[in-house]
């Protein structure tokens, strides 16, 4: 148990510190790196808590997709050098943003909300006994999620599929532009090229060179 709690504190510490660093680091790219670190340590906490499927999904979705996307966007926008300051200084004429005090205030509020939530949980033990979860120990998370997701909640699964389809269609409709004069690749044309349409045998006279009509 001691080892487990040591690990727990290590991961939690890293998670908290990196979450703080996301907001205070001066370089936006560094912020995204810290965000990734935060996601990773939280997914470690999930795995330690026995929710290995959730932890892995967190790794794949947030670290693998969302955070990397953030990184690309940040690097493309070239806002890496934007200065973050705690307070807007009137002396310096550099570009500074004053997001931090507001962000800090909100995080303090969220922190107190969390205390309330956890406190409420602690002083209301009947909440946890009310849960009539039928978890069997022998099954893995993935197995037990799958066994309800594809049976009892199959309609929700299918509807989410439709939602994803619609979002894909929407993204294509709103961004795809058919431009004139664009040279496109046509696999069919490329493959169906034959020797006699593409190669020409030219008799070359001596000392005169070749003139090919283009």
């Amino acid at each position, binding site marked *: 148990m001691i080892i487990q709690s040591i690990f727990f504190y290590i991961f939690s510490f890293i998670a908290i510190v990196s979450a703080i660093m996301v907001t205070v680091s001066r370089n936006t790219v560094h912020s995204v790196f810290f965000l990734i670190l935060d996601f990773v340590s939280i997914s470690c906490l999930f795995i330690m808590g026995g929710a290995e499927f959730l932890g892995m999904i967190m790794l794949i979705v947030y670290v693998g997709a969302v955070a990397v996307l953030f990184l690309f966007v940040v690097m493309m926008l070239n806002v890496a050098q934007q200065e973050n300051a705690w307070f807007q200084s009137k002396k310096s004429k550099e570009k500074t943003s004053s997001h931090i005090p507001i962000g800090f205030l909100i995080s303090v509020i969220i922190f107190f909300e969390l205390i309330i939530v956890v406190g409420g949980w602690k002083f209301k033990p009947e909440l946890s006994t*009310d849960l009539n979860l039928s978890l069997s120990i022998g099954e893995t998370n993935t197995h037990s999620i799958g066994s309800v997701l594809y049976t*009892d*909640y*199959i*309609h*929700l699964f*299918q*509807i*989410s599929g*439709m*939602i994803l*389809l*619609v*979002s894909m*269609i*929407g993204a*294509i*409709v*709103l961004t795809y532009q058919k431009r004139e004069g664009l040279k496109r690749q046509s696999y069919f044309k490329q493959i169906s090229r034959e020797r006699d349409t593409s190669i020409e045998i030219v008799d070359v006279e001596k000392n005169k060179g070749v003139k090919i009509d283009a």
Partner: protein
Amino acid sequence: MTNLNFIYSELTLAFSIMLLLIIGVFKKKSSSLIYNLSILTLLIIFILSLSLFGKNSTSLFINSYKIDYLSTFMKGLLYLSGIFVMLSSTRYLILFQIFKIEYPILLLSSILGMSIMISSNDLIVFYMGLELQSLALYVLASFKRENPLSAESGLKYFVLSALSSGLLLYGCSLIYGYAGSTNFDIISSNINSVNYGLTLGIVFILVGLAFKISAVPFHMWAPDVYQGSPTSVTIFFAILPKIAALTVFIRFLYIPFINLIDQWQVIIIFLSIASMIFGAVAAIGQKNLKRLMAYSSISHMGFALAGLAVGTNEGIQSSITYMSLYVIMNLSFFSSLFMLKINQKYYETIDDLSGLSKNHPMLSLAMLVSLFSLAGIPPLAGFFAKFYIFMAVIEQEMYFLAIVGLLSTVVAAFYYLRIIKTIYFDEEKQKYDKDHNLGLKLSLILSTLIIATYFIYPSGLISIISKIIII
């Protein structure tokens, strides 16, 4: 899966969306084919949903998807109005250069989301349906993306709708936390006493729903989105999402939270009164007809909500009747709006209507009928719609609501009558084209005829709707 025949219409819709998408990808220049096939699909699922009439109510997927008389009626109304919306806007889409294969597919997926919403008996299913329909609507609103107004309306709708979805989800989580389930029936049996957490959850969900039907004070998006989107999308916005959201309103208020009626009745009354007054007053200064219709729809939603605030079966039925007639009136008005075009250009301000009666007597007559009906002047359908609402409200002795409703009707009559005055008594300005496609003519003639002749046989609709018994 023994009860699969109850969801044949949704299944057909989902499969045809995918099939049409495949046809559109592999067949060149197939926009017209896909558009017609989509109308055919809607017709087929309309017939399929009609076949469910009179069957006993069933619930599927561990009681989270309910097929009862309410859902069957609302789905029938939804599919039918979908057919007419699509029929009336063909020519507009071609001239406006948005006749792409994705357009009907997005419409169909939005309708699929709405029919899921209508049948939902569970917070999660309801939310998924809501997301499916609104995701398609965001894209539709900004479909003419070269037009800055259209792009703006899409973005505005997206941002505000995402915010309201967030509030709604928060409400769902509160209700799940305090009632222990997301299923409407289980929530209903778990609620024993008034609980402020639950009330807060109801408030948040009502905010999200009120946003979807653009009730005051969550109406800010409606005028801009109505004006900015292509008219073919505006007519869709004005009709179909309201049908779905009203059904969810009924189901959400009257199945899980009927015992907490004291808690939510005040909210609904407030939403209703605010929408009626604001919709009537704010429309006075409008010059753009689409914008004016946005305010008019806000005011009409206020009336529909007044029926829901009553808390009796009569109230619900009057609200559903109101909604059905509202759909027909809006269809008629927007169909006549589609007829105001010269060559490639569509006109949509009140000034463009000036002196319309000299050159286009039939079109003016149709507009006269639909506008009189929207204003609620007897013997047209709009009068009966308002009459049922007031009757239900007065029966429960909620006189204040009735008085405010009547007063706002008087104010609203001003701007409808002003349009009629412009049509009939102002100087004539321009001649509009007369070559309209058959679908547009059909939808205009049918809807106008229904409005004008509703008083001959009003019991037809009433006898169908009076079978909807919720409480």
